[in-house]
């Protein structure tokens, strides 16, 4: 058979496949109809076969190129991005994530780093006679003035109490900071710097507000405002930084404990049918991918905490509720965190059986 004849014969099918690809790209699967989908599958298989045979048919190179593109395009339509399986979300959220966080060395590291620096900065800022100008150096004099003005009035009388736009603002602002903290973690140093910076500034602000330099009233207003959403927000920062560091460290040291790996991640070296080169397991890039897989749930938990904190910050903190209620909220939130991370997260055997 002559090549030109062969191509003329097959071209009809190729063009039909092309049209179907265009249709599938533009509309949802349901509107295309079962008949067309079946037709698409058949045509795709035929095109694959044509591509495989192209060499023995001695097709001209531009036809082979065309077939590569056609098969690639059809492949992209056949295998589309999958919908998220929301049915497992409860299991992931309440069983897997807390355990992972509890065991995660990076989260432990960021936890200690953050609270050490936070408490240290707080202590130093709260004793201005021993460390004069410490708070002003860290936070900046004008920022301190701004804070003092902000909390001159009781939280409930400021900007008309709780508002929806306030909630949106806190979601935007705080979650943005969290995402940056997470993302920068890949450059380990950068992640640690951002974390320490946040810890020092927050600690110094807290300490300064508690110091004798600030009038009784202002500090009372400040702590009344901050108490309720503090637990969630500070934990969220720690988690975000920890998740970021997990990615960064997996890049630095590509070693993973064998028992912490899933079966499909075990170093076995993939070998595809056509590729002779066997990949050495745990090149940095593979390690990075495993690290990212570990870090994502932690970041998800952090994002949820950020949003909850923003809600509390917007609706409860500036409200006219008595201060005791806000303290109760803070205690309740801390208790929830303890239950989540320690009770749910404590490593146990039955997870292996399940």
């Amino acid at each position, binding site marked *: 058979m002559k090549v030109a004849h062969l191509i003329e014969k097959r071209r009809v099918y190729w063009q039909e496949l092309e049209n179907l690809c265009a249709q599938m790209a533009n509309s949802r699967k349901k509107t295309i109809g079962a008949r067309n989908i079946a037709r698409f599958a058949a045509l795709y298989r035929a095109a694959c076969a044509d591509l495989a045979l192209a060499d023995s048919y001695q097709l*001209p190179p531009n036809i082979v190129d065309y077939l590569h593109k056609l098969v690639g395009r059809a492949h992209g339509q056949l295998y589309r991005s999958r919908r998220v399986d929301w049915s497992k979300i409860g299991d992931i959220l309440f069983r897997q994530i807390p355990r992972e966080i509890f065991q995660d060395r990076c989260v432990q590291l960021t936890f200690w780093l953050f609270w050490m620096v936070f408490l240290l900065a707080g202590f130093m800022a709260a004793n201005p006679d021993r460390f004069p100008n410490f708070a002003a150096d860290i936070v900046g004099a004008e920022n301190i003035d701004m804070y003092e003005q902000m909390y001159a009035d009781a939280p409930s009388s400021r900007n008309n109490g709780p508002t929806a736009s306030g909630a949106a603002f806190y979601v935007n602002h705080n979650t943005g900071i969290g995402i940056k903290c997470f993302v920068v973690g890949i450059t380990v140093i950068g992640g640690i710097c951002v974390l320490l910076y946040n810890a020092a500034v927050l600690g110094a602000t807290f300490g300064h507000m508690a110091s004798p330099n600030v009038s009784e009233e202002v500090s009372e207003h400040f702590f009344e405002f901050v108490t309720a959403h503090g637990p969630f927000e500070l934990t969220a920062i720690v988690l975000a930084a920890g998740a970021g560091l997990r990615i960064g460290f997996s890049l630095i040291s590509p070693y993973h404990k064998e028992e912490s790996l899933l079966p499909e991640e075990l170093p076995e070296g993939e070998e595809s049918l056509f590729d002779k080169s066997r990949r050495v397991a745990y090149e940095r890039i593979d390690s990075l991918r495993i690290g990212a897989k570990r870090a994502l749930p932690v970041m998800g938990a952090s994002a949820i905490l950020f949003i909850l904190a923003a809600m509390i910050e917007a609706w409860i903190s500036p409200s006219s509720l008595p201060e005791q209620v806000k303290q109760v909220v803070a205690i309740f939130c801390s208790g929830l965190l303890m239950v989540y991370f320690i009770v749910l997260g404590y490593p146990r055997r039955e997870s292996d059986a399940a």
Partner: protein
Amino acid sequence: MVAPWNTEAIDSQFKVVTPENIAFNYQVAGPFRRLLAFLLDLAIRAAVILAFFIVLSIAGVGSIFVSAGLEDLMFALMTLAAFFFNWFYMAAFEYWWNGTTPGKWLLNLRVTTDEGEPINLFQSAVRNLFRYVDMWPMVPLPFAVMREEMTPEPVVVTFLFALIVPIFNQRFQRIGDLVAGTMVVIEDRSWLMKIAKIEDDRARLLADYIPPNFVAPRSMVKAVATYVERRRYFTTARRREIARHLAEPLLEKFGLPADTSYDLLLCALYYRTFLSKHSADGTKEDSQLLGDLTQQSNPYSAAPNSPVTAQSK
């Protein structure tokens, strides 16, 4: 697999083996095409925000909200919209549009996993969150004059990470791509698929003089096809120059006169391999005589006063 040498390394081709056990090539997208797509997306986002602003402020939709006492809600919605637009615009499009965003779609780009499969929600989210690191390193403005009267954090976003990291891997992956295990491929939707037409009747006639039992080897067929498909881009002199390496030994082998046009011979070979009705394996009746050719003046010779001879010396 098609070519004997490794074209994947130099053509930035990436081979995908489908579950149907067929290998096909994707072309990995280079940084500049992707930069263009990114700028397009940026422009689209700016346009949408501007349109939103115009509708709210100039078209008076905003004042309707204010008069209805929903001002607060409006601001809340705007802030949230800005938040999602800022962080998740790309990710959302890549998830719902099967790996493309408007900018990528316009430039025929698509995001796939390293194995050429579609990306999932997490991969699209991660690869786009890490755009923030791409902007690094951020450096403060250098001179005090420049820093004055600026809003807080006057920094220059250098995008050096976005430029440097793709250089060091074969698939031009950004940091986000590396973390999520994705790559960007070119997916052409418009192409021309033709067998080159041989308009010149002389080529068809010449094809009959090629010995019927001659079967061109595979690599020669490929070379001839590549040449004929692009010869329209070349001048006559250039055609002669390129074609002679293959044509000269062939002329000798076929016993054709040495002044036959090289270009014409390759066209004839192309015609015979791909287009003619006769089969290529030499089963045609051997009726034509090559001897005819030597008696008359060669009708396929390149004209002596044509630019072919004038330029190629």
